[in-house]
């Protein structure tokens, strides 16, 4: 079991390495002077020179890459063109709304989607099943911001239940926090519900045809027990795998949702950076998001050990 965990951690390192290499090459393969891109249009010659210095552009490209990775590992993500502040500080300031939104979304989605998927598979072919399937296709088809604007026009502008935009940290009161984060969460959750309900239904359908489900029924167990203890328990691995993979979708969704609801999070930071071509910020957000993604999927890999006893021995 220990060997398995070490193996998973070791396997995650090259993945992160490729992410870094990709981000690095993306900048270097862009026509033009990378220093000029990192410094922005308004940079003075001295600033440009300082950036050239730190990149070491005259060194071989491998040396440049490893120096850059070394700087990243020390927390040096460069300086924002727009504000002149270190990128790492900007990111630190914007973490809370993003993490809040991501967490509320995951919690709400899983709570709704798993039961939906189970019922849809159990009642395969019925109206409930078709409703769940349609909902999940809708979730994949309607752009997040369209949902967001529909939510705003309905719940904020018509019904006036929720504010149009803005964020309150959880430290300033749970009620206020929830009131403000509700609409963004509802907006983002549909996509995630679609994803999780679909995989739950698919894997439940597959497992409901498995022999041990028939055995459970042959034992005279009530249907609820068959579904929960025998079927759903065996679906846990595919479901949490998709929750992990779906995290990349959540990050993409958060960027859009924050932009719609004007939440001061990483997504807004990124969009503002795009508009002002503030590449150091974009680069840092990509690295950070990928790191979080890799870590989450690493944790999920490790969780397999708890969910599936067969993994310990392979």
């Amino acid at each position, binding site marked *: 079991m220990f*060997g398995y965990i*070490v*193996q998973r951690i070791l396997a995650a390192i090259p993945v992160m390495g490729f992410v870094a290499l990709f981000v690095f090459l993306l900048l270097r393969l862009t026509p033009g002077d990378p220093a000029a891109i990192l410094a922005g249009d308004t940079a003075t010659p001295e600033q440009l020179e300082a950036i050239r210095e730190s990149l070491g552009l005259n060194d071989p490209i491998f040396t440049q890459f490893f120096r850059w990775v070394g700087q990243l590992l020390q927390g040096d993500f460069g300086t924002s063109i727009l504000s002149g502040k270190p990128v790492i500080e900007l990111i630190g300031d914007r973490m809370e709304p993003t993490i809040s939104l991501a967490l509320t979304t995951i919690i709400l989605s899983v709570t709704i989607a798993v039961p939906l998927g189970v019922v849809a598979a159990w009642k395969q072919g019925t109206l409930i099943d078709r409703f769940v399937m349609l909902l999940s296709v809708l979730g994949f088809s309607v752009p997040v911001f369209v949902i967001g604007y529909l939510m705003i026009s309905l719940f904020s502008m018509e019904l006036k239940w929720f504010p149009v935009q803005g964020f309150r940290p959880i430290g300033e009161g749970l009620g206020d926090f929830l009131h403000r984060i509700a609409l963004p969460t509802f907006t983002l959750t549909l996509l995630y519900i679609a994803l999780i309900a679909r995989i739950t239904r698919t894997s439940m359908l597959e497992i409901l045809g*498995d*022999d*041990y489900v*028939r*055995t*459970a*029924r*042959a*034992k*005279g*167990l*009530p249907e609820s*027990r068959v579904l929960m*203890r*025998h079927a759903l*328990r*065996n679906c846990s691995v595919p479901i949490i795998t998709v929750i992990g993979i779906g995290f990349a979708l959540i990050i993409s969704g958060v960027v859009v949702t924050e932009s719609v609801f004007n939440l001061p999070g990483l997504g807004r930071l990124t969009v503002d950076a795009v508009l002002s071509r503030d590449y150091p910020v974009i680069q840092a957000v990509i690295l950070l998001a990928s790191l979080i993604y890799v870590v989450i999927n690493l944790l999920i890999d490790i969780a397999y050990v708890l*969910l*599936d*006893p*067969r993994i310990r*021995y392979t």
Partner: protein
Amino acid sequence: MSLLDIRNLRIALNGAWDAEVVKGLDLSIERGQTMCLVGESGSGKSLTALATMGLLPPALKSVAGSITLKGENLLEAAPARLRDLRATSMSMIFQEPMTALNPVARVGQQIEEVLEFHSDLSQSARRSRVKEMMEAVHLPDVDKMYASFPHQLSGGQRQRIMIAMALIMRPQLLIADEPTTALDVTTQAQILSLIRELREDQGSAVLFITHDMGVVSEIADDVTVLKLGEMMETQAIDDLLRRPQTDYTRDLLRSVPSQVPRPPRDGQSNEVVLSTDNLSKTYSGGGWFSKSREVKAAQDVSISLIKGRTLGIVGESGSGKTTVARCIMRLIDPTSGKINVGGTDIAMLSQKEVKPQRKKIQIVFQDPMRSLNPRIEIGQSIIEGPLNYGTPRDAAMTRARELLELVGLPASAVDRFPHQFSGGQRQRIAIARALAMDPDVLVADEAVSALDVSVQAQVLDLLAELQDRLGLGILFITHDLGVAAQICDDVLVMQHGRVVEYGRAGQVLGAPQQDYTKTLIKAAPGRHWDFANFRPFAEAAE
């Protein structure tokens, strides 16, 4: 009154009564009796069992007739009532004990679950009851085994867990659906004797479903024969084996391979077409942390196959017999040793260097459903090899037509697709494909194991006929001693990757020297019966 009484049972697919899969079955079982339900694939025997348990898949919910257990018609019982009856009055064990157990739950808890829903026992009482039951099915070290997961047990142990689970409430009826088919022959013998023992202890009745006449002769009191959903006959076991009433049953019995080795053929030729010399294959356990886990799949296997003869490699699962075949075909790379094909050692050659030798040795696989590319016409599959060696397409296609006729199919079938053929027909096509290369050696890797017994007999006849005509050397890999006895001149017995015994078939199967071979032969079900002559061997000797 019988314990279980099935009257005029009819089951139809999706309510289409013109396409019934069970057509008017009558069957009754007395307490303490074992009724065998025998049939080939598609006979509807498993559906009958599932219908009794109320576990038919939704597409097969159209059921007519009656199934009466202790006077209660199960087909009219409410779902809740059926749930109460399951495990307490009737229970079922399945073919594949690995997939029939929940892989993520401890086996002890899976048994205990039955008591949780069907008894008022306290948790500690339940637990001790489970352990008693696990001891009753002769599982070792029950405290440790209680907390094990299915993948940690052997196939036989898993089936014992299934049996413990089925019998813990002492139901009067046990339905066993091919419970030993997925098991090795020695394990099968143990499970059969366990089922017999528990039936006597608990006085329950057993509905035993199988396709294997050997197993039937070991366990049945009465036998019902089914064919394509239709009931052929019901008789007591001895009457059925001696005096079958229908042609179908007679054919079925005649197709059962006899356990008595064939008479030796003394060769017109001594030409060795295939030999191996200390062939070994070791799988190194991959990964950085488990280097120690090496698996010696085959060790020092030396064989020699003579033109026109058949050499059988016999063994249980995991014995390494298929590994040897795949090494010889160079589908996997041997670790050491020599493989001589027509005078060339191909063991260590690169794939490119092997290619000229591949013509001489061809293979037929086990699974007829997967051994032909479903997307191309069978003619194209047959000529693929000859085209690779430069035969012009027209000539190859003419030859393909001849070969199809040779294996008993119409020449016009060349432009059909695999899904248009039955399993036995596909296996014939696979043989034709192998012959298209004019090989000296044909490797048959469990080539008849997936076929029904009557089809199996026909394919075996075909192989024998082709061998006579073409002088093929056949390397026949099988787990079935009967099949080996019927067609092999020489037999090699393998266990755990090693050769246990190797010699003339009459010697190895008739007068084995090694304990393992003796155990294998003793475990073979139905070895006392000469099915084809409708009498026990003991009587034939008189």
